[in-house]
């Protein structure tokens, strides 16, 4: 019987209490280490379709009679539509409908940033729709725009109350510390820029609204759209089979989906609304800039006694104030911590979750601060981290934590620093730096899966989840194949459509494998049990003496060995149907991921050029399901992190609030030529308390420590303190000049 419980749910570092019906999960975890399928490298399911250009993305969808929508955006950072006349646009050739403020969610009278959508047009062609936007007559009331986050905090322009946290007696601990290091760190606004822009195609079929959308969360879109249009949820069908990247910016519906649905309703035709690349750079969400005023107090033996931080998240017009203070609260054993976090509501484009929101920014500040402390104390940075490793999360035990093992595995990379530094000459300085990682990634219920086994002895896992490019289909197929005892090539995964499978969790917050994997395993176990029941009756054997191995039903004594298709084939068109649900997370425990990265850099002290040469990443995320896909996640996260650290920056005109970096030429993401050598290792120990799988998520952990590891390597190489991202040549030269000035005054410049 299902049990009704109250439990805590975490997504992207945000918690809520939810009711949950949990099924008993009788499955015990598999032993650690590679199994027949799980834990062994598997090439991607649907890899060939993607590589051959056959995969049909939302961007490729063309429905008969489809119209194209375009959005009119505010030219002002803060303004109100005083009067709008859509008639001139509607009179133009090919234009079929137009929407003004208030006529679809996301089209508001008040434009809170330059680029906020206020109106939309649908026309036979995209060119006609765009031309019609020009004809819309708008009278704007220009309002005061606040662009500076510190000004916003001073004036109390905040999203919600400031978030305050304190444990112990911070003031007293700081006063009693032997050494205090204070520093201010700043991180910039960066953009997701998934290659498939935000887009949706909407179509009404009878009383059902079908939404084809590039999304990380089919069911979230379903709920938002159903609510917006007053529809029963089952009258909204959301489809996304292939998805061209999200990184957190596609966790919900967005105005493009609402506008397409409303225009489709009005015209009776399918409507596509797709952001252009320039719109993507202006209005599709970002990792917000932060300002972090940090302080650490320590005893001379390296024990951290006080940590404090004042954090400003420059959230923008909408979004949420993410846990920039999270790493400071959780990474180190420190009895006295005080943080306050302000979410500044300013007239800049909206924040959206971006790969470990808050923790990427907060780890840059904290882990640079820890290295500055190590330099002051003259203690090895690795040793300092070990001495302060947290054994509980503010008193709550960890479900599993192998950070100490990560540190042990990092030793050989850390040892390289002597040899790396020795390569330095007058121009190029070499150095090595490290940073630790903490983040969530435990996933949670609810999530469901079905397993269907046909008389051909093949299995299909059916669940309405999405594969956003992380290798979800493959990992789910591996888990199912392992449990069923099938070869991997006999298991498929059908996903991407709310009409053809049960509820599945969001693909965000490093939650896909830990949320969905246990449900898939449970469904496969249910199907396997039924296969064995059939075989036991057919061959007159005890069910518990039977097993499935490599697609064969076998008896313990070796007397029976018969192909699954022979057993299930008895049913002819009949099928075995298994179902599975995700169980609860362990009560009273913190489920977190850990890791450490060691970066090697070269800095040209004449030009300020920074080259990242090598990054060694060691992460502890429980059981690894697919080592091949896991490595790709780590490499991808590190490469995005290198962009975040060195080159990426959304620039705003400080006068008008207009985004200046609107193209992929101006917004500089890493190319293949910018990639360091990446070494990827895992502790690969199942979390014994977490689900029937013991796996945590891996999408986000690898990007978390990158910036701090690189900045610490730069300090190691040059003695310069870089406290601001991105570390452009200008920033590097400024830091080098400051270091020379410090040296001239007699302070030690190098570690």
């Amino acid at each position: 019987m299902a049990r009704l419980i109250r439990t805590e749910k975490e997504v992207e570092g945000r918690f809520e209490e939810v009711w949950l019906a949990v099924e008993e999960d009788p499955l015990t975890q598999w032993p650690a280490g590679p199994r027949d399928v799980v834990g062994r490298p598997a090439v991607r399911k649907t890899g060939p379709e993607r590589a051959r250009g056959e995969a049909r993305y939302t961007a490729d969808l063309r429905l008969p009679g489809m119209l194209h929508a375009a959005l009119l955006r505010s030219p002002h950072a803060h303004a109100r539509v005083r009067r709008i006349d859509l008639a001139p646009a509607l009179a133009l050739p090919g234009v079929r409908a137009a929407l003004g403020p208030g006529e679809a969610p996301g089209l508001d009278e008040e434009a809170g940033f330059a680029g906020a959508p206020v109106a939309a047009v649908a026309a036979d062609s995209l060119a006609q729709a765009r031309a019609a936007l020009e004809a819309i007559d708008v009278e704007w009331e220009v309002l005061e725009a606040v662009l500076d986050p510190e000004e916003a905090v001073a004036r109390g322009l905040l999203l919600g109350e400031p978030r305050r946290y304190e444990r112990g007696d911070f003031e007293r601990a700081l006063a009693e510390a032997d050494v205090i290091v204070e520093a201010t760190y700043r991180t910039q606004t960066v953009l997701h820029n998934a290659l498939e822009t935000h887009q949706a195609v909407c179509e009404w079929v009878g009383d059902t609204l079908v939404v084809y959308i590039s999304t990380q969360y089919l069911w979230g879109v379903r709920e938002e759209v159903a609510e917006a249009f007053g529809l029963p949820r089952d009258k909204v069908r959301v489809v996304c089979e292939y998805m061209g990247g999200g990184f957190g910016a596609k966790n919900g519906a967005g105005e493009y989906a609402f506008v397409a649905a409303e225009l489709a309703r009005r015209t009776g035709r399918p409507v596509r609304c797709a952001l252009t690349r320039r719109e993507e750079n202006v209005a599709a969400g970002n990792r917000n800039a932060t300002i972090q005023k940090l302080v650490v107090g320590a005893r001379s033996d390296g024990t951290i006694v006080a940590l404090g931080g004042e954090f400003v998240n420059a959230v923008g017009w909408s979004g949420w104030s993410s846990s920039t203070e999270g790493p400071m609260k959780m990474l180190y054993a420190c009895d006295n911590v005080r943080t306050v976090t302000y979410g500044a509501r300013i007239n800049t484009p909206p924040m959206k979750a971006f790969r470990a929101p808050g923790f990427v920014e907060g780890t840059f500040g904290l882990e640079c601060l820890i290295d500055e402390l190590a330099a002051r104390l003259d203690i090895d940075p690795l040793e300092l981290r070990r001495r302060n490793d947290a054994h509980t999360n503010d008193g709550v035990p960890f479900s599993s934590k192998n950070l100490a093992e990560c540190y042990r595995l990092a030793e050989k990379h850390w040892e390289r620093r002597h040899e790396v530094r020795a390569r330095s000459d007058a121009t190029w300085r070499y150095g090595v730096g490290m940073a630790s990682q903490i983040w969530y990634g435990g996933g949670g219920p609810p999530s469901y899966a079905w397993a269907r086994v046909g008389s051909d002895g093949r299995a299909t896992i059916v669940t309405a989840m999405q594969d956003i490019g992380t290798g979800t289909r493959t990992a789910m197929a591996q888990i199912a194949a392992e449990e069923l005892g099938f070869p991997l090539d006999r298991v498929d995964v059908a996903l991407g459509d709310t009409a053809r499978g049960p509820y599945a969790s969001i693909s965000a917050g490093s939650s896909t494998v830990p949320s969905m994997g246990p449900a898939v395993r449970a469904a496969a176990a249910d199907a396997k049990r039924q296969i064995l029941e059939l075989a036991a009756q057919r061959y007159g054997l005890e069910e518990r003496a039977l097993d499935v191995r490599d697609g064969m039903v076998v008896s313990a004594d070796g007397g029976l060995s018969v192909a699954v298709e022979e057993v299930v084939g008895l049913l002819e068109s009949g099928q075995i149907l298994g179902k599975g649900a995700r169980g609860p997370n362990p009560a009273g425990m913190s489920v977190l991921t850990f890791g450490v990265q060691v970066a090697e850099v070269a800095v040209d002290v004449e030009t300020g050029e920074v080259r990242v040469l090598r990054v060694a990443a060691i992460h502890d995320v429980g059981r690894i399901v697919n080592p091949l896909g896991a490595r790709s996640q780590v490499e991808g996260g590190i490469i995005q992190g290198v962009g975040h650290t060195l080159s990426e920056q959304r620039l705003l005109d400080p006068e008008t609030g207009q985004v200046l970096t609107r193209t992929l030429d101006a917004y500089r993401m890493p190319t293949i030529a910018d990639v360091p050598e990446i070494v990827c290792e895992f502790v690969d120990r199942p979390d014994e308390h977490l689900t029937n799988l013991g796996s945590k998520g891996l999408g986000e952990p690898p990007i978390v420590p990158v910036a701090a590891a690189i900045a610490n390597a730069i300090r190691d190489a040059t003695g310069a303190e870089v406290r601001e991202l991105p570390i452009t040549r200008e920033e590097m030269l400024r830091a080098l000049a400051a270091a020379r000035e410090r040296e001239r005054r007699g302070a030690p410049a190098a570690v």
Partner: protein
Amino acid sequence: MPELRLRVNGEEHVADVPVGTSLAQVLRERLGLTGTKIACNEGHCGACTVQLDGVPTLSCITLAHAVEGEVTTIEGLRDHPLVQAFVRADAVQCGFCTPGQIVSAAALVAANPSPTREEIRHRMAGNICRCGTYPRIEEAILTWRD
């Protein structure tokens, strides 16, 4: 509307297309060859890469009427060994940039079957992959004949 004649993947196509239409648009909207992706539509990312007489070309900033010669898209390279090499090396994450990557890589290995890492980094730098599959792409191209 001036008539457009295009030779794509060995086939002749004739279409009425307004002057100013990009090759990418014609391929995707008229010929249904949606393997060629448009990600920036202004020549900055390489997702729309096709070959013109074997030379990698950004189809989103190429005017269809200006094209002379043979166009090869990903649909014409589906049996190229690079496709399997990309899958084997796990050089495919979301896959949106992948067709363009393979079209570029096919031109590279046609000119130089054994490129060095440096050559790969130089010749592939115009194809952006936001998922960061670059190390896998490098490996796929190094091992494309395996």
